């Protein structure tokens, strides 16, 4: 009998369409896997009934001879940043605990319309702020991966760490993620899966809990480039309810996948070669170049001169936007209310927010409030936005010579939970390679490259031109075919 949890998104969809098995069988197998994996803490809420109802509809539609959608019969995990109608949506925070949206986010609705079902809401870093999944109010997510010969709990990355853990552990064939400064790519890299952040504006932000609105972008996380291409196609599309949604047709990325890179030029940014980066990371980058040459591409050195300023600029811009976006959590309209005895409205706001936000969220709100405050706005925020212009200009100039850029996704493999918790700045550095593409709004993906000697996955990152998800996916496919990454974590949970 087929173990449905080992199948990828496309294999499930095609198998259901061909009648090899039913969507219900697939949903049941994954519901069981989710229920048996509570040790990973990847899900905040499981929704087995949602998965079964969606599956039954697909099975009925197939029996009736109706057209099936691009995701028909595929049970997925939904990051808890997406509002899901009738299902608690918390952004992994205490302040939204118990919040049950009366509406559905555009991206999740698109996926249900394409025939997907929901296994549950995935744990994450609180309000998507974190790189290790240690800021969730609902507890750390444990990676299914462990170092050889060790039982220490490792980070699944963040902020989409429930998504990465669940996909890597075969609890779901695919999951949604969101990426503000690396939150799809970094967790994908450290768990040996694939994830793509599309061009800013491809996926609607409507119904996605806002962190930094000029950067937030949803994308798929799955176990192959093709599965990501299929799911991204289902998620993306113009939405008049999002003022920064791109009004452009969504290409059929999956149909146009082509790993032949003849005539393509790939850039290697010399500023990403930082002192102190692990040799294993460098080695996998070298290997990546060789794979792309083998696929027919020309590989050239390029310069992105403002790379080192991208991360500090991000840590002004993102907290500034967060301090504004998170002002809405006031204990009045939804979520937590803390009303100390005899206190007034202002005290209620302050008490509610003190009780409802975690430490990292408070830290970023305070930074954001400070850099936006009178007298400091120009020195911090305006200067950071100017640097952001320069970071984007670097990419624009580079893309005059190259079709895509290859870099490591992360500066290290996964680290142990707790290892960096007391050092916010060191934690921020996990996204040093991911943030520049975020600031420039570019499509970028991580694909698994290899395992370290310790048995932990490493990813390679491909950054593409605006709107050129196809070029990114094709380059990713060329790496995937040559890396032959089939490793999966041994089951201990």
């Amino acid at each position: 009998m087929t173990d449905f949890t080992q199948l990828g998104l496309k294999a499930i969809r095609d198998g259901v369409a061909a009648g090899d098995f039913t969507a219900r069988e697939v949903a049941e197998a994954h519901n069981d896997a989710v229920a048996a994996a509570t040790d990973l803490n990847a899900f905040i809420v499981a929704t087995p009934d949602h998965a079964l109802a969606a599956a039954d509809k697909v099975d009925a539609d197939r029996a009736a001879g109706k057209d099936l959608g691009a995701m028909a019969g595929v049970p997925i995990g939904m990051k808890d940043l997406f509002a899901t109608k009738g299902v608690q949506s918390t952004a992994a925070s205490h302040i939204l605990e118990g919040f049950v949206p009366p509406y559905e986010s555009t991206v999740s609705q698109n996926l249900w319309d394409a025939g997907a079902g929901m296994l549950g809401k995935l744990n994450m870093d609180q309000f998507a702020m974190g790189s290790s999944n240690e800021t969730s109010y609902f507890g750390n997510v444990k990676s299914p991966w462990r170092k050889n010969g060790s039982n220490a709990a490792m980070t699944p990355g963040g902020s989409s760490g429930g998504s990465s853990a669940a996909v890597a552990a075969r609890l779901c064939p695919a999951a949604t993620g969101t990426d503000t400064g690396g939150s799809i790519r970094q967790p994908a890299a450290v768990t040996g899966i694939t994830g793509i952040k599309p061009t800013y504006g491809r996926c609607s932000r409507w119904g996605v809990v806002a962190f930094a609105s000029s950067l937030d972008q949803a994308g798929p996380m799955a176990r192959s480039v093709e599965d990501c291409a299929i799911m991204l196609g289902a998620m993306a599309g113009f939405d008049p309810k999002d003022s920064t949604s791109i009004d452009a047709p969504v290409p059929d990325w999956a149909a146009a996948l082509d790993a032949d890179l003849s005539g393509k030029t790939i850039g290697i940014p010399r500023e990403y070669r930082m002192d102190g980066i692990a040799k294993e990371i460098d080695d996998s980058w070298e290997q990546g170049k060789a794979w792309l040459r083998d696929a027919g591409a020309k590989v050239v050195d390029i310069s992105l001169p403002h790379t080192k300023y991208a991360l500090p600029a991000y840590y002004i811009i993102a907290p500034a936007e967060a301090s504004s976006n998170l002002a809405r959590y006031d204990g009045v309209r939804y979520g937590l209310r803390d009303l100390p005895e005899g206190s007034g409205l202002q005290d209620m706001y302050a008490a509610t927010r003190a009780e409802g936000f975690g430490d990292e969220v408070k830290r970023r709100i305070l930074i954001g409030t400070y850099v936006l405050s009178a007298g400091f706005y120009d020195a911090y925020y305006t200067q950071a936005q100017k640097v952001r212009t320069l970071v984007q200009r670097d990419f624009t100039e580079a893309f005059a010579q190259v079709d895509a850029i290859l870099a490591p996704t992360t500066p290290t493999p996964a680290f142990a939970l707790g290892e960096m918790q007391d050092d916010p700045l060191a934690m921020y550095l996990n996204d040093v390679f991911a943030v520049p593409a975020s600031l420039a709004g570019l499509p970028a993906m991580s694909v698994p490259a290899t395992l370290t000697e310790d048995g932990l996955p490493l990813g390679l990152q491909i950054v593409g031109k605006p709107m050129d998800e196809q070029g990114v996916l094709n380059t990713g496919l060329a790496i995937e075919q040559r890396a032959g990454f089939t490793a999966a974590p041994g089951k201990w949970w």
Partner: protein
Amino acid sequence: MDRAALLCGWAAFRRTVRVTANVRLKRGARAANANGMSVTREEVAKIASLARISMDDDAVDRMVPELNNILAWVEQLGEVDTVNVEPMSAVIPLEQRLRDDVVDADPKTGGGRRDDILANAPVAEHGFFGVPKVIE
């Protein structure tokens, strides 16, 4: 490369950043007299009050060095020559769209959803959000 060496490499990387941050912090502290580029505990308390986050003395004390480390680190942006550079306003070319000038152009974002809107309120009465008395 084995794991130990790798960790050494990463530790060195982090050390470099921390040393840089500390050097900047000291510089920042000096500059603070002139430019106010590092924060005192009074300023952190003021920021927390602006952000409507209640913080006791211990929480403020913990936050001061954390914020100063981060602020000292982002201060390196001052090195970048941004004369004649426009601050970014939109990362993709955007034109502001106008919706149709009709009531409830999209039912999801239009009116007539009072009960939905109040459904998650901690306190809702008579079709309104309930808050503590504002006028004494």
